[in-house]
């Protein structure tokens, strides 16, 4: 292996947290393999580039092109391909978020490289990178390696720890002018609609989800209030979404979103395998359910056997007391 390149993704004037997680993973691999690592950002700002030093990254390639003012997956893949060649990089890491999961396999295909998506562990061992990734919706996990010289990985967000380093690191930025034409923008973003005032389950540190036990959309304020007390996002089980009580964007599970928050609170969710698939890598799981035999209690850290209609409001008050929210 020669060099690791990490794709850095900006959000407003910062980098996404998942980019810092990817930097930390790259740093560990680079140390293990005894090879350098660098970041690649497209049209990065000074602030964005500066922030990587805290995480021990000292080299950043800033690929600048006016055609990239609006995002295009096809053009971004082309830019990355050029930078990978010019940097002679052979290990490419992406955060496995909406953009990364779409872009990484495209880059891998361009490089004719092996790709492993949604990794939860990466380790340098015996001259190669050994990855672990959940399969069958997290019901099992595979240990897997890439055979081709060039290797591409995406990392499940919130699983790898973003670790700051001591002291300040001087950052060397290399500006790169990619060769791009309008024809490269075969797909491009024309608009972004934010879920106003709502925190997305994919970005939340804490998620409070409701299941069938909530009985109706009119009771969902209990879930919303608890989520607000934690400063977290509102999630839902499939039953709740299929009943039309909540939008699909909130669905956690096999046919919804896969999340790994620090805290996942399941209220009135029995814990069908399809739901567990979407949240089993959460760091701490709390279950509130009146059925003591519900499968959710087999996968939780802390459980309350009781009626959510009595428990949740009390819990909300007590949590508020501590968080002040």
């Amino acid at each position, binding site marked *: 292996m020669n060099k690791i390149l990490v794709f850095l993704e900006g959000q407003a004037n910062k980098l996404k947290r998942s980019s810092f997680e990817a930097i930390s993973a790259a740093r560990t691999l680079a140390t293990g393999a005894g090879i350098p690592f660098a970041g690649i950002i497209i049209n990065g700002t000074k602030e964005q580039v500066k922030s990587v030093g805290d995480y021990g990254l000292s080299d950043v390639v800033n690929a600048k092109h006016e055609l990239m003012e609006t995002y295009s997956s096809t053009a971004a893949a082309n830019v990355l391909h050029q930078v990978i060649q010019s940097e002679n990089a052979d290990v490419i890491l992406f955060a496995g978020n909406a953009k990364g999961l779409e872009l990484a396999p495209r880059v*891998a295909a361009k490089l004719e490289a092996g*790709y492993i998506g949604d990794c939860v562990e990466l380790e340098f061992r015996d001259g190669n990178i050994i990855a672990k990734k959940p399969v069958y919706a997290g019901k*099992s996990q595979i240990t*897997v390696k890439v*055979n081709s010289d060039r290797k591409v990985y995406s990392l499940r967000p919130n699983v790898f720890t973003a670790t700051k380093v001591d002291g300040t690191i001087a950052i060397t930025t290399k500006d790169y002018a990619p060769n791009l034409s309008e024809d490269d923008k075969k797909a491009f973003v024309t608009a972004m609609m934010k*879920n106003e005032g709502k925190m997305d389950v994919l970005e939340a540190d804490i998620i409070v989800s409701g299941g069938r036990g909530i009985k109706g959309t009119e009771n969902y304020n209990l879930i919303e209030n608890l989520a607000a007390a934690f400063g977290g996002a509102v999630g839902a089980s499939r039953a709740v979404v299929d009943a039309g009580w909540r939008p699909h964007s909130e669905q956690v599970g096999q*046919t919804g979103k896969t999340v790994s928050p620090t805290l996942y609170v399941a209220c009135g969710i029995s814990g*069908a395998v399809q739901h567990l698939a979407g949240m089993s890598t959460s760091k701490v799981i709390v279950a509130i359910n009146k059925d003591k035999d519900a499968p959710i209690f087999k996968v939780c850290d*802390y459980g309350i056997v009781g009626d959510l209609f009595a428990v949740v409001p009390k819990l909300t008050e007590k949590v508020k007391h501590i968080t002040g929210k």
Partner: protein
Amino acid sequence: MNILVCISRVPDTATRILVGPDGKTIDTQGIKYVISPYDEYGIEEGLRLKEKNGGTVTAVTVGSEGSTDILRTALAMCVDKAVLIKADTHKDSYFVAKNLAEYAKEINPDIIFMGRQSVDYDSLQMPSMVSEFLGIPSVSVVSKLTIADGKATAERDVEGGKEIVEASLPCIISCQKGLNEPRYPKLPDIMKAKSKPIETREAIQTDEKVTVLGMSIPLKQRAGRILGDGDGDIDELVRLLHEEAKII
């Protein structure tokens, strides 16, 4: 319109997964297989597009002889043609992508639909890979789609909201729940599908880019402290979250 839908055969989502005797793949005994749920949105979208604009819908899968069952289901949903790219051993995603791309090159579709992911290896990579091999654009995780004036306008789920993406045709659309409500096959169509032809062709071989070394069932390493619902229990939960887990 010439419409191609790529589908894959996966264990029913309620299946309990056990590791097979080789230690690398699942134990397939007693497993009920289905079309990967997201692929059904792809079939439905293809059919609706055909109903509106005319044309043909072809369903293709890469897999063993056993995969003819999902092709029959696709035929029962009224796709015009079903193709099995036959591969007897399990290969990596690169192999599947190359074979799908090879077939697509031959029939030259105006649009290709796939599920956002197959719910076995869960990598969401096929749309991007195949489209790159074909030199065409793709849009992943699409929950709303309009086709007009030679382009696709797609709404896709991203963190914190939705993105509108415009792509020129031909392109690949990866389908998300919400895009449509897939139809159930009607009994007469299920009967008719049984005798419809399925074109079978041999897969092309590729280098093994990715090797699975082992499979395991994740261990449960959870504290599993179960409390009652008294005020003291709720206090204890808050204390545990505050002092032990240090989350709040």
